[in-house]
C-alpha cells in the first residue's frame, strides 16, 4: 500500500523512543535542557550521552531544573525544557511547573513514567503525574505508544509557545522510551480543539482608538503579556505617539523604559504613589497584557466604584483574563503585538490627537503626585539600606544587567529601585511568589547570555531554598553575582506582622544562619561580607570585576526596613501607607 505522508522534516530512521525525544528536541531548536536522572529516564539519558547537539545541565534538585529552564525561557523568549524522572522527580518539579504556569512561561517538561504495563499498580516510583500536574500545566500528555511520541512532543511545543504561553508536560513511560519507531518530526501541527486568536477584532480596535483619542486623563497599564508577546516597541510607540503616562506591573517591568519621563513607576501593592493615583483617577485606561491581579488593583470594588466613569480597554490573548476581576468596556482578544500594530496604524492614520490642554493638566497632576517622592528613604543611616544597594547595583551595571530575584522585600526593592529599560531583564516569580527561584533563574539566564552581567537579588531566607544550585554553578562555570540582602528576617513576613499582627514576629526570625561567605567558599566560589554602607559600592565593583567567578555578597542590611508604599490587603490602590520619611 502506498502511504501518503504529509510534508515533514523526516529522516525515516528507526529510533528508540529515547532517541526520538532527543531528536525532537533538537528539531525544535532546543540547545539546553535542565534535568536530573533516575530509573524511568535511563534510556533517555543514555541517548543524551550519545549525541552532542543538546547540552544537558545537571542540577542538584529537580526544582532547580524547572526554575532554571523557566529563567532561561523568561530571558530568551524561547521555550524552556526540563527532564525529570518519575515519582519523586516529578513531585520535586511541581513547584517549578506551578511557578511557570502562574506567570505564563512557555516550557516543555519531559517526565519519565513507570512502564505502561505497571501503571496503576503502585509500582516503584510511580505517581499519577498527569493527575498531579493537571491543575498547574497548560496541558499534559501521557504517551502510551512510541509511534505517538514525536507528534506529541510537537504538540507540546506548539501549545506551550502559542496563545497564552504555559508549561506543557509529556509523560513518557520507560517502555515507550525503549521501543523503536520510524522517526518523523512534523513541521506543522493542527489541533482542532486548540486555535488561539492572534488578530484583534477590527471594530473593537477602532472603538479603542476613539476612546484613546478623546481621553482627558489617559493611562497605559502594560503587564507581563507585553513582555511575553515581545511588544515593548509597540507599547513605547503608543505611549510616545499619544504622550500618555505609562505604568508596568511587576511582570511588565522593562516593557517600557523605566528611565523615561513618561514612565510613572510600577503600580500595585508596592507601586509608586503616582502610578496608583493615576490608575485610580484616569478616565481612559488601556490594559495591555495585564490581568488586573489582586496585588495590582487591590480591592476591585474600590477600584470600580471609586471611579465608575473610567472606560477600560483590555488587550489580552486569553479571553478568560478579560472581565475576570474588573468589568471592561472594550475587550480586545488577540496577540498584543498584532493588536497594537493594528491600533497604531489607526492612530498614525488620523491627525486627531487628545486635547492638549487636558493632557497637560493631567500631567501636571501626575507631576504633583510624583513630587511626593514616594521612594525616598533615609540615606544618612549607619546601617546599610537595602534600597541603596539596589541603586548602586543599577549604577555599577549601568542599568544593563539581567536581574533575578527571590520573593520578599528584596524582590520589591529590586523592582522599585533597579530601573529596567529593556524587556526580559527582570526575572522573578510574580504569580506564585516562589522563594528559591532566584539562583536557578540566574543560572538559566547566564547559560543563555554568558557575556552578560547577571545578578540575583535575594534574601537570606529565600536563598536557602535552592542553595544547592551553587554546586551546579560551579560545575558549569556560571559566574553569576548573588546579592544577599541579609536582614536576618523573612522580611516581608515580618513587615506584615509589624503592620497587621501587633508586632508579634511569629517564626519569621532567621536564626542559626550559615556563614554565607564560608558556604560560598565551600562550594568553590568567592564570598564577601559587607556590613558598612561605605563598603557597598566597592564590594559590588569588585564582584563584577571578577568576571569568571561566582561571587556571593552577603550584605548585612537594616533589619527594620519596610517596603513602601504599601496598599494593605482589601484596600483600594489609592489608600497607600507611605514611608515615614515623607
Amino acid at each position: 500500500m502506498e502511504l501518503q505522508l504529509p510534508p515533514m522534516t523526516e529522516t525515516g530512521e528507526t529510533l528508540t523512543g529515547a532517541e526520538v525525544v532527543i531528536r525532537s528536541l533538537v528539531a525544535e531548536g532546543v540547545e539546553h535542557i535542565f534535568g536530573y536522572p533516575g530509573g524511568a529516564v535511563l534510556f533517555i539519558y543514555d541517548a543524551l550521552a550519545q549525541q552532542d547537539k543538546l547540552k544537558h545541565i545537571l542540577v542538584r534538585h529537580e526544582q532547580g531544573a524547572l526554575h532554571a529552564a523557566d529563567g532561561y525561557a523568561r530571558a530568551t523568549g524561547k521555550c524552556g525544557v526540563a527532564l525529570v524522572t518519575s515519582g519523586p522527580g516529578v513531585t520535586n518539579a511541581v513547584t517549578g511547573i506551578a511557578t511557570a504556569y502562574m506567570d505564563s512561561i512557555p516550557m516543555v517538561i519531559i517526565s519519565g513514567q513507570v512502564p505502561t504495563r505497571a501503571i496503576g499498580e503502585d509500582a516503584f516510583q510511580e505517581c499519577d503525574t498527569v493527575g498531579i500536574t493537571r491543575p498547574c500545566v497548560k496541558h499534559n500528555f501521557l504517551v502510551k505508544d512510541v509511534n505517538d511520541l514525536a507528534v506529541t512532543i510537537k504538540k507540546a511545543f506548539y501549545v506551550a509557545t502559542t496563545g497564552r504561553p504555559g508549561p506543557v508536560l509529556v509523560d513518557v513511560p520507560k517502555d515507550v522510551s525503549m521501543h523503536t519507531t520510524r522517526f518523523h518530526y512534523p513541521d506543522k501541527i493542527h489541533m482542532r480543539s486548540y486555535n488561539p486568536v492572534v488578530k484583534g477584532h477590527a471594530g473593537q480596535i477602532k472603538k479603542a482608538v476613539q476612546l484613546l483619542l478623546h481621553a482627558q486623563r489617559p493611562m497605559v497599564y502594560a503587564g507581563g503579556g507585553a513582555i511575553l508577546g515581545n511588544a515593548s516597541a509597540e507599547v513605547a510607540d503608543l505611549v510616545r505617539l499619544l504622550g500618555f503616562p505609562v505604568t508596568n506591573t511587576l511582570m511588565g517591568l522593562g516593557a517600557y523604559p523605566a528611565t523615561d519621563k513618561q514612565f510613572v513607576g510600577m503600580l500595585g501593592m508596592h507601586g509608586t504613589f503616582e502610578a496608583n493615583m493615576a490608575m485610580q483617577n484616569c478616565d481612559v485606561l488601556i490594559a495591555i497584557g495585564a490581568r488586573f491581579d489582586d496585588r495590582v488593583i487591590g480591592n476591585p470594588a474600590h477600584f470600580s466604584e471609586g471611579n465608575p466613569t473610567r472606560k477600560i480597554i483590555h488587550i489580552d490573548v486569553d479571553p478568560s483574563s478579560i472581565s475576570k476581576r474588573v468589568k471592561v468596556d472594550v475587550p480586545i482578544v488577540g496577540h498584543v503585538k498584532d493588536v497594537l500594530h493594528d491600533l497604531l496604524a489607526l492612530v498614525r492614520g488620523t491627525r486627531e490627537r487628545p486635547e492638549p490642554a487636558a493632557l497637560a493638566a493631567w500631567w501636571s497632576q501626575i507631576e504633583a503626585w510624583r513630587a511626593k517622592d514616594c521612594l525616598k528613604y533615609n540615606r544618612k543611616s549607619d546601617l546599610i539600606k537595602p534600597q541603596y544597594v539596589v541603586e548602586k547595583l543599577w549604577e555599577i551595571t549601568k542599568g544593563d544587567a539581567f536581574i533575578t530575584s527571590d520573593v520578599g522585600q528584596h524582590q520589591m526593592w529590586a523592582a522599585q529601585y533597579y530601573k529596567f529599560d529593556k524587556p526580559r531583564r527582570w526575572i522573578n516569580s510574580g504569580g506564585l511568589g516562589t522563594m528559591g527561584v532566584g539562583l536557578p533563574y540566574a543560572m538559566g539566564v547566564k547559560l543563555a547570555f554568558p557575556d552578560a552581567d547577571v545578578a540575583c537579588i535575594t534574601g537570606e531566607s529565600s536563598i536557602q531554598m535552592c542553595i544547592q544550585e551553587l554546586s551546579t554553578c560551579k560545575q558549569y562555570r556560571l559566574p553569576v553575582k548573588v546579592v544577599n540582602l541579609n536582614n536576618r528576617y523573612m522580611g516581608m513576613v515580618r513587615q506584615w506582622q509589624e503592620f497587621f499582627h501587633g508586632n508579634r514576629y511569629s517564626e519569621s526570625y532567621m536564626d542559626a544562619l550559615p556563614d554565607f561567605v564560608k558556604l560560598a567558599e565551600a562550594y568553590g566560589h568567592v564570598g564577601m561580607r559587607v556590613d558598612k554602607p561605605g563598603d557597598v559600592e566597592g564590594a559590588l565593583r569588585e564582584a563584577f570585576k571578577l568576571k569568571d567567578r561566582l561571587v556571593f555578597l552577603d550584605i548585612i542590611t537594616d533589619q527594620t526596613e519596610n517596603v513602601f508604599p504599601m496598599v494593605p490587603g482589601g484596600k483600594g490602590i489609592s489608600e497607600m501607607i507611605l514611608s515615614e520619611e515623607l
Partner: protein
Amino acid sequence: MRHILSILVENEAGALSRVAGLFSARGYNIETLTVAPTEDATMSRMTIVTTGSDEVVEQITKQLNKLVDVVKVVDLSEGKHIERELMLVKVRASGKDREEMKRTADIFRGRIIDVTDKSYTIELTGTTEKLDAFLEALDRAAILETVRTGVSGIGRGEWVLKA
C-alpha cells in the same frame, strides 16, 4: 441562574477529569454532568448543568474553552433547547398501593420495567422538573431507591453543535 452547557471534547483519556477538575479548582457548581461518545467516535459530548451569576457562567465558558481537549462549548440556555433526564425509581408496590403506583406512573408516562410482588422499578424521562414532580407525587415512604442520569440537552430546530 441555571445554565446548561453543551461541551464537545476530544475523546481522550483524562478529558473528563480536566473538565471536572476545572469546576472544583475554581469553585464552580456542577449540578449534573453527563458524558458519552458522539456519532463521531473521536469526540464525546458533555452536558453540564451549573448555576451562577452571568459573570461566573461567562468565566466558566471561557475557562472551558481554554482547556486544550475542549473542542466547543455552548450555553444551551441562551437559546431554544430541549433537555431530558432519565430516572429509574424503585418503589414499594404492595397491597392496595400497587394499583395506585401504576396509575401515577402512567400519568407521568413512566414505564414499569421491573416487577416483584412487593416493588416496581419505574423508568421515567423528562425535564428535571417533571422528574421532581413525579417524586413529589409519590408517598416518600414508598421510594426505595432512585437513580438519575443528569440532564442531556440539545438545541431546537436545525442548528447543530459541530466541531
